[in-house]
């Protein structure tokens, strides 16, 4: 459905997108995961023909995307990172305005607007001006303006930034619902939990390069990490913990704020040995818990830094 071939985008000497290849299939929720400044939005804007790029090709439904590819644009919905509506218009008027840029028939437009309002749960706020809305409701209005014309391809650029948990859940449920209706969703985020929760496939992007791609399970299987065991230590002199590194099945370990984190090899069970080690070395602890590998673990292993660095 969307094919990006050998895309290069430079800003002067800075290479924002570096020979990136990407294929997004029809009716999938594809997550673009990467830290701030990794090139996610630049990639999206190139795909949408909002940005010129230096090299490469972008095809949507087999046709080359361009600023005047109106037949393609008609199929696309965009929810930008920053809320995009007119402050002087009410919620309903804003949705109707953007719908009118796609649909000319007034009856059909009215139906679509009502559906978008219902979809985003804004029924009680249709006559409100945006400045009267909370941050979460503004985000929902932003989404309503992007989906009102029933696009078959939807770009969501960090739609949950700075929203309350209730609105976040509403947005994520909405994305799942759209996916069930057959919409192809391209979802950029730096929240790994969201990517894991709603994306069929995830592409990890950093410094303009697509570092890894696949389902969350596939991505986790690519790395040399199993569970991470975290031990909250009693803040005293905990002696020399470096020997943990030499325990069988340990990939790496670190201590931060009196919390010992030990990453293990996949499929290796070391909890017994670790607790025995702590007893043997008279190291006191309060809590021990184990975490499955996350996309953050994947990102950490691939790039050497965390998603939110």
């Amino acid at each position: 459905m969307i094919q990006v071939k050998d895309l290069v985008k430079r800003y002067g000497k800075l290479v924002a997108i570096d020979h990136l290849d990407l294929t997004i299939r029809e009716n999938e929720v594809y997550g673009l995961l990467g830290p701030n400044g990794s090139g996610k939005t630049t990639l999206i804007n190139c795909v949408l023909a909002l940005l010129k790029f230096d090299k490469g090709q972008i095809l949507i439904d087999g046709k080359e995307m361009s600023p005047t590819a109106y037949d393609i644009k008609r199929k696309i919905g965009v929810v930008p990172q920053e809320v995009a509506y007119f402050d002087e218009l009410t919620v309903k008027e804003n949705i109707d305005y953007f719908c009118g840029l796609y649909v000319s028939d007034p009856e059909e437009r009215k139906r679509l607007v009502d559906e978008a309002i219902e979809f985003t749960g804004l029924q009680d706020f249709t006559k409100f001006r945006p400045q009267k809305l909370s941050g979460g409701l503004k985000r929902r209005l932003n989404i309503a303006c992007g989906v009102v014309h029933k696009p078959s391809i939807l770009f969501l650029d960090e739609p949950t930034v700075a929203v309350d948990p209730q609105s976040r859940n509403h947005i994520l449920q909405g994305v799942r619902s759209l996916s069930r209706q057959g919409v192809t969703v391209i979802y950029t985020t730096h929240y790994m939990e969201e990517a894991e929760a709603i994306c069929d496939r995830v592409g990890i992007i950093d410094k303009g390069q697509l570092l890894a791609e696949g389902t969350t399970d596939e991505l986790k299987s690519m790395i040399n990490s199993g569970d991470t065991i975290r031990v909250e230590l009693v803040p005293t002199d905990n002696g020399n913990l470096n020997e943990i590194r030499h325990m069988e099945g340990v990939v790496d370990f670190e201590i931060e704020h009196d919390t010992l984190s030990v990453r293990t090899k996949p499929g290796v069970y070391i909890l017994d040995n670790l607790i025995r080690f702590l007893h043997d070395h008279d190291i006191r602890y309060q809590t021990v818990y184990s975490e499955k590998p996350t996309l953050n673990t994947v990102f950490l292993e691939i790039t050497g830094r965390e998603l939110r660095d």
Partner: protein
Amino acid sequence: MFFHVLRYRMLAYIRDRETVFWSLLFPLILTSVLSLVMSGLTNEEIVIAPAKAAVVQNDHYAAQTPLQEAIRALNADQEAPFEFTLVATPEEAKEQLIQGDIDGYFIPQDDYALDLHVAKSGMWQTMLEEFQNTYSSNARMIVNIMETNPIKGMSLLLSGLPESRLQFEKIDPDQNVTNPWGSMYFAQIALIALYASLQAVTEGSAVDPSIYPVGLRQRMTPQHHLGIVLSSFFAVFFMSLFNVGVYLIFSQFVLGLDFGLTTYPLYAIGISVAGIMCGIALGFLVSAWIPGKRNRHSVAIAISMFMVFFAGMMQMHVRQIVRTFIPFIRYINPADMITDGFYALMYYGDTSRAMMNIGLLVAFAAVCLVFTFIRIRRTRYDHL
């Protein structure tokens, strides 16, 4: 799509209270206040004492027949706002000033200049300053006409200075001393028209993804962004036309100020329409070439203010000074074109001069739009 965008942009315009205040209510309030002040000044029931001044009879005075004629004519007129006395020396005049017998005194200088000496500032001192400026520029003009056209110059001199003022203007309107109060009112229309530039900046920016996220959303619709810009253009145009229309009608029929609306309605409307087009075109030009939303509004405001200032809105004599020393400014200043167009209609009934100003305004708007179009065609959203 055109009417859809037009409708919503006009709705947004109406709901923007700040814009409505500055582009519609503020000019109405300002003109009402000005009109009240002006009517107070000319009200027959209010008796205002004339400004008293002494004139030193030095060699320059003896050589200036126009000055002698003007003083004679004004002293002979019982309703004249000036009362002159002749003194032999500056010391004598100064003594009278210190004693409070006069409001100021003039020492005639070379080249028809008058040095004005006052002890304080006030209404009478301002009136004397008005006389000083009016006399000097009129006298110089007479000499200029005498050199180039002695017959007309002679007839002007013979007809007497105060009465000949209107005739001067008919001979060469571009060089005359304009009626300052008229210019102030006309410059207000120019201000309303140029306010359209601010709204045009907003509309021009609304399709620019680097300024407004809503611009990004609009660029992603299956509409050419120039089509959306065109709809926005007309939205600002109709609203500005409404503002100018309300101003003209209110001024003409409520305040009784004659803007030529009843005598030359087509020309008055033509100047208004062309002026608004200039304002909008200027706004789009600024939004196309100046980066940053705040910068764009600042530049549009600054340009508009400079233009109406040069057209004589804040300081009445500025227009005359500009026309004398930097005459080309009037050909790049829409505010001056609007002011001059209305002035020509009201004071001279000069429709050809009004048409010339309409032509200049249309040309100015066209140039702005061409440069805007060039810029928009070449620019694409490009930021990290």
